């Protein structure tokens, strides 16, 4: 099997959209890591980014807006042998799903969380997203956005997320390598991917990202304070792996006490139920 089989051919993305690059990077990462598509699940929410699993030949759970993370967490714990990727846009993961974002980091399931961050709402046609820059004008935010943008990396690092990275889809090769690292990492891995929205964001263009990002060099990702500093700096946005904590147990290890069997293999012990009922006679 390959990752091009069993996919929807009717691609709903705009020509020039960063989603194409992300799809390519993700499929290449899976190929290079030699994953069996049958053992991969992509869980997504709603939005243009969330259509990703429609176009990749793996298992798909295209759920509700904002709700990809609880679904992904449950799939991982119900069958720890699966590679589970939760993928959606900035509005879905950081806005509608903000509470799940926080608590999934706390749980630390061994999943990859890919967020397409284009700083705008695409599918609903151009309103502000949680990551839109201040002053960004839209048909709804008519005076420009008046809120501070949400800083996903800083929030994730503050919560001691076990892997925090950011890439820019202008560099597909780099993005692919970061995704590979995220997949290899044991624990929750956030990959925030900057991308332009060619239809609705005329501010944060390919050119803008090139001018406003930089690659982390000589950065020690085990240094949490440094990672936090980089994540919260004003000015250019850092690209690369900001923070890694290898010393965290995963949700499924703790919740299942190391048992990796899929839950569908479980059989009920009726003798034990009988015993429990008998206890109630005493």
């Amino acid at each position, binding site marked *: 099997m390959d990752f091009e089989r069993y996919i*929807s051919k009717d691609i709903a993305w705009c020509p020039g959209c960063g989603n194409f690059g992300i799809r390519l990077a993700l499929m290449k990462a899976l190929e290079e890591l030699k994953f069996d598509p049958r053992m991969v699940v992509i*869980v997504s929410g709603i939005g243009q980014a969330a259509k990703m699993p429609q176009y990749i030949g793996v298992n798909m*759970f*295209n*759920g509700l807006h904002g709700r990809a993370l609880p679904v992904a967490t*449950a799939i991982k714990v119900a069958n720890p042998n699966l590679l589970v990727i939760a993928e959606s846009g900035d509005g879905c993961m950081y806005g509608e799903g903000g509470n799940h974002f926080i608590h999934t980091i706390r749980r630390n399931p061994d999943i990859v969380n890919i967020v397409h961050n284009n700083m705008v709402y695409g599918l609903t046609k151009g309103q502000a997203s949680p990551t839109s820059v201040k002053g960004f004008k839209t048909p709804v935010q008519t005076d420009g956005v008046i809120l501070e943008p949400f800083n996903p990396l800083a929030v994730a690092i503050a919560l001691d997320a076990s892997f925090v990275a950011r890439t820019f889809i202008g560099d597909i090769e780099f993005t692919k390598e970061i995704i590979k690292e995220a997949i290899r990492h044991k624990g929750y891995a956030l990959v925030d991917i900057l991308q332009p929205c060619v239809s609705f964001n005329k501010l944060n263009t390919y050119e803008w990202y090139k001018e406003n990002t930089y690659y982390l060099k000589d950065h020690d990702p085990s240094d949490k304070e440094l990672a936090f500093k980089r994540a919260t700096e004003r000015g250019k946005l850092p690209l690369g792996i900001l923070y890694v904590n290898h010393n965290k147990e995963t949700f499924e290890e703790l919740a299942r006490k190391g048992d990796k069997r899929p839950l*569908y293999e479980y059989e009920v012990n009726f003798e034990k139920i009988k015993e*429990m009922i008998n206890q109630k*006679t005493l």
Partner: protein
Amino acid sequence: MKDICIVLSGEAGQGIQTVEYVLTRVLKNSGFHIFATKEYMSRVRGGNNTTEIRISSERVRAFVEKIDILIPLGKNATGRLRDRITRETLIIGEESFIKDAGGEKIEVPLLEMAERIGNKLYANSVAIGLVSGLLKADRETLKLQIRKQFEDKKEEVIKQNIDAALEGYKRGEELSGRIKVSLKRDDAVKKECLLNGAEAVGLGALAGGCNFVSSYPMSPSTSVLVFLAQNKSDFGIVVEQAEDEIAAMNMIIGAWYAGARGLVTTSGGGFALMEEALSLAGMVESPVVIHLAQRPGPATGLPTRTEQGDLNLVLYAGHGEFPRVIYAPGNIEEAFYLTYKAFNVADKYQVPVFILTDQYLVDSFYNLPPFNLDDLKVEKHMVKTGEDYIRYKLTENGISPRGVPGYGDGLVKVDSDEHDEFGHITEDFTTRVKMVEKRLKKGEELKKEVLKPKLIGDENYKVLLVAWGSPLEVIKEAISDIKEVALLHFSQVWPIDNSVAEYLKRAQKVIAIEGNATGQFANLIKAVTGFEVKERILKYSGLQFSVEELRKKIEGVV
């Protein structure tokens, strides 16, 4: 029915639940039939909570208003019970606790007796002993149950509690002449189990193969979550307290997708947050089991009280049209068997299945023969996928074989968007129509498994009572001596079959009895069968029906 009704009354935090727990076991293991139910305030300390324990020679399963013996465990413990205290009510306890009450007062210095043995804290053990003595319960059983209750404590503390109980027992025995009713005992009762509705739901979930529960705590449903959490290691259950009900329901759908058997347990307000994901389950055709223990709303309402006000909520919850099943257990046995069944039905038809209980049912106990598990089995309907597997294959009855990722050679694609047979997003109108019809066909198929309503009482009825869920046992007792009256009780409230109209037409008068203010089930019957149940006995104070009030109201109509 020959029975004695004892009420314990005190503040939250005074140990009333411990007294109830130990006392019900002492009495049951002495051969008495037992029923117990509690009502409590939404607070951790103070206020006034009561527990009613009925003791009888025969099976007893319903709440009564009368109080034969009242044991106040603190000050201000009798005022709220004023209307239930009669001249015959024996009120036993500390002078300062009983002085303001009516009834026949017997002063027993529980605190002083406890203090003499070693500690004022033993007063509850004195009270347990006192009631045991009054009813001449088995002394050895009393000692054993007190020991069990305090087994984590130092031997000295255990012994002193036993001494305190025996001291209470002695005083109780002396007073036992004041009890006018003499109750027979039955050794067979000793072999029966004591369960409450929450435990029955929990055990039913275990028997249904539940191995994943995710919920957010909410009274009165939390006890099911606690039960499963406490037994998770023995059964390999994943238990996750989610950040909110939205996450809980989405997790459970994810769990079923990966092959687990998941449950959420919640109350009306929590379920309101799950509605969006309920609709998701409808669209992706995921099995899901929802236990909803009702409490009075709207909004926060009366958090620890009871009501049957959420039938419409679960019936119509979720945007869009999709089938569902709603069970409403009438008693503890049904809470067990229907929860068990819910998992198999959810899996077979790939639909949400509700267990609709309420505070009264989950918090009530009685003795019952241990469940027969011999015929129970976990029916797993998932299939191993072939390479060309498609998730939403159109079939005759609307049910497509359900694969799970990683089991077989196929890919499992599910989508909350309208989708084609592959599970891919589509806006093709022809496909849309096919998929809507496919989902609704399952609803038709489900009708084959509808539980028929039970007719209880006089088969040649002139008056037919219609009820659903937890008032079952209360109504049964209320009409046990009334001729030409029968009860038609529904333990499944959706789907219902329109054949029920036949029962209704045979009656001269039909009366709906529901624990809500609008007669939601009567309205549903009208919608399904066209039969209008005009007369309604409705209660929405936050308390369950009592046997006496129903008897009076039904007699008034007959």
